[in-house]
Structure formats: structure tokens, C-alpha cells
């Protein structure tokens, strides 16, 4: 019914969790999704992990959207309670955080 793309599932890492096999995105795939979020806003994601989120206009709504995109790709909800709160100020912080959430 849906023609939403799931092409990124190809080439994903996966690990067994009990009897369920969970797909996991690579850091580069998460960066691609982050770029897509920015692109939808008419913005461009800088290549550097050190880029400041406020300066590039990546806001909490964008972060939430990125999380939804990741959930759609892996077919599961992210557990945001697991890693605890932390400061997220740079592009690299976002990628680290999502990576950590996936393995939480």
C-alpha cells in the first residue's frame, strides 16, 4: 500500500535480540537521514561533526523528526529513556546519541 522508501534497510547492520532481529543504522546512514531532515527545510547539513546545531538551524522539532525517520527505517521505537539526558550541541552529538539509542 505504501510506497515510502525502505531502501536504506539494505546494507544495515543487525544484531539478534532474543528471537527478534533488529536492524541498526550506521552512523553514515543516520547522517543521511539528518541531511534529509535539513534538506526538507531548505537547508544543508555541513560535512563536519563539529558544526553547531544552533548555527545550522537544527532545532528540537528537527531532532524529533530525525528520530521518527530512524524509527521508520529500523521498524522499531527508540528508547529515549535509556541513555539519560545529555547536552546535544553539535552534529556529532546527534549522531552519537542516535547511535547509542539504537544499541540501548
Amino acid at each position: 500500500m505504501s510506497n515510502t522508501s525502505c531502501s536504506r534497510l539494505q546494507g544495515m547492520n543487525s544484531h539478534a535480540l532474543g528471537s527478534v532481529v533488529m536492524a541498526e543504522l550506521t552512523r553514515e546512514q543516520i547522517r543521511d537521514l539528518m541531511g534529509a531532515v535539513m534538506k526538507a527545510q531548505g537547508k544543508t547539513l555541513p560535512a563536519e561533526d563539529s558544526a553547531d546545531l544552533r548555527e545550522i538551524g537544527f532545532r528540537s522539532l528537527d531532532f524529533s523528526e530525525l528520530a521518527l525517520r530512524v524509527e521508520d527505517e529500523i521498524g522499531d521505537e527508540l528508547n529515549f529513556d535509556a541513555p539519560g539526558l545529555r547536552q546535544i550541541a553539535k552534529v556529532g552529538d546527534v549522531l552519537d546519541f542516535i547511535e547509542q539509542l539504537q544499541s540501548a
Partner: protein
Amino acid sequence: MTARRRSTALIGDDNTVVAGGRTVTWRTLHKLPQLPSPAAVLVDNGADALAAVRHHAVHGTELLVATGSRVDLSMREELGESGFAVVIAKGDEHSVTPAKLKRVEESGRVWLLTSGSTGRPKRIGHTLESLTTVTTQQQPRTWLLPYAPGTYAWWQVVTISLTQADQGLVVIEPSELETWPLIAAEHGVTAASGTPTFWRQTIYRDTEALAKVPLEQITLGGEPVDQAILDRLREIFPQARISWIYASSEVGASIVVHDGKAGFPRAWLDREPDPESERPFLSVDKDELIITSPHHGAGLDGAVRTGDRVEFVDDRVLITGRLDSDEINVGGSKVSAGLVRNVLMGHPAVAWARVFARKAPLVGRMVAAEVVTSPDLGPITDADLVQWCSNRLPDYGIPRRIKFLDAIPQKETLKSDV
């Protein structure tokens, strides 16, 4: 208790009825065997439902008519315990499960089932008189009847044909929904009523076939009506009268708008009651539409909280959706799903849209959407739609996840639960 019966029923007895490929009149429609009273008549086609209505109009027996698919086994049990014999009608054949409770019939009573969009369908009591809301003489017309038998919208069209001369009916069965414009053109349908989803699907499937139907009256109801669908129908039928109606089993047909605009004029709120007219009294309390209607169901006189949410836009009152699902709270900022849907459907390449809340980190809920694009104007991307919305909505109202569907979903009620 005896419900009042309308004396004007059967004025339309010689009106043409086209059903299942046969052309008859109300008078020559096949007859159902004498029905028990009260009876819940469950049908799987429009002709049997009309036969049950005529039986009621002639004999005044207490009647509930519905499609069998809407009444599951437990509801059939409940009907039996409430005194209804359950009749499965199929042409000349029928089976009867006697009522479990013996009670005195309410002569002239007609029962409707609510759509059940807010839970299990409820029974609402009416009469032919309370269901007949079009009482002024109509110019000769042939009406399309695409609604599921027994719904309020179905009764609205049926009572016009039953109580007025020169008001023919062309019944569309569920299996004919995809090709109804061909059938309607063949039988000269000049008036058609349907949900916005019904009209969108028809335009999406075959605009050319639709344009060949000689429509003079187009009516929309049953779902929030947006400006985009009104404008699209106006393009296809520049000469037709295009109306939208707010109606429900509970309050009847309460708002009728003919000016081609979505919503109704704000000046209609809190108007002094006019004893000469059957005008309902409309008001708003905490975003909820409140209606006191002369067309109400039994026991529902007085102000009825509709559960429908409204928003004020300039001098219009827009009905945006159900109160319990229309408002989406995005990190403390609230946005109406109905208004977001209207913006999406205002995009020239969008044929249909559904907007809903999706659980999201940090902000609690985000706006998400499902969209069907027009085959003529696509392709478009989610970025195109985000851009479209960002020029018309606050940040928090922009759908952040958009899924493209291949076809417009539609239920038996012709709605798509938008």
C-alpha cells in the same frame, strides 16, 4: 408509545428506482413479506433496504434497517434482547430470528445506527417525519444513492424520493462505487450526495467520466468539507449548485451551506430562534459545536454537544474534526489536524490527505500525514509538501513524516476517518 407518522410519505410512489440493474418504481419494487414489528432488517443490497422502507411507510411497523456487515453477532443479540426480530432479507427470501424480549411496538418508529466512529454504534430513534428534512418542493431530479443503507445520509436521500414527486433514485452498490459515473450518466442522474472522500475518489479515478454526469446539485457531508474539494467540483461543474451539509443521526441535518465556501458564516452562531423556521440553534463552547435542532433524534431535544471541533477563520466557522482527535499538541503548541489537512489538500497535486499525531521524542507528539497524489499532477515529494506547508502553517503544524499511499482509503460509510 407511538411515534408520529408523516402523512406525505408515498407521494413519490411512482418515482423511478434503479437498483441492481433493474428499473422499477417505489410502487413496483419487490415486496418484503409482512415484517414483524419491531424488526431489524439486515440487507446486503440497496433494493432490499428500499423495500423495507416502503413496507414501513405503508404499514408503520417499527424498523431498523442496516447492512448486515455493520451489525455483528453481539449487536444482533443486543437487538433481540431489545425486542427486535432480526430479519436477514435477500430478495424474496428472508430469515427471521424472533425477538428475545416481547414488547409493545412503537408504531411509526425508525431506528438508525450511529456511524460508530466514536465507539460502538448507538441506536437513535427517528420517524419518517423527523428524517424528512427537505420539505420544500424540489424541481424534478434523479438522485444518486451511494450511501450504505440505514445511515442518516442514506435516509436523507431516500426520504426526498419517497415524499416528493419526480425525485428518482439510482442506487449504487458497493461493487459499483468505482464506476458509478458511468451508471449515473446512463440514467441521467442530476443530483448526487457523497462524502468528501467519495468525491475525491471519483475525481481521482476518472474525472472525465464524472464530468459526463449531468449534475445540477452536488452535496457533500459526513466529513469535514474543505475548500479544495469545493473548488475542484466547481471547476468540473461550473453550473451546478454545490452544497455541504452538517448532519448526524443525533441532531439531523442542521447546517446547510450553498455559497461554495468551506465552513459556515460566523453570524449564524447564537442567532435568535425563529419560531417560523425550522432553523437549528448553533453555538460554540470551548471549541465544541453545540446544536439545538428540530430534526433531532428521539430524546435528544435541547442542546446537543456534537463532539466536533471548530476553528474560527476570518468570518467563517470551520468544522475541523472530532474534538478528541483533532487537536495535536506539539511540545505545548496546539494545532488542528483538520486545518493541516486543509492546507495539504489545497496543494494542486494532492488528491487526499489524512493528518494525525505521532508519538515523538522531545516534543511528545508530531504532526504526520498520509497522502495520495493526483495521477495527473504528480510526482511530488515530501519535501515539496513540507515547503508548501511551511508557507502556510506554523513550524509545529508542518507534517514531519509524510507517507504516500497508492489509493484513497474508503470505508463502507464512504468516509476515510480523516
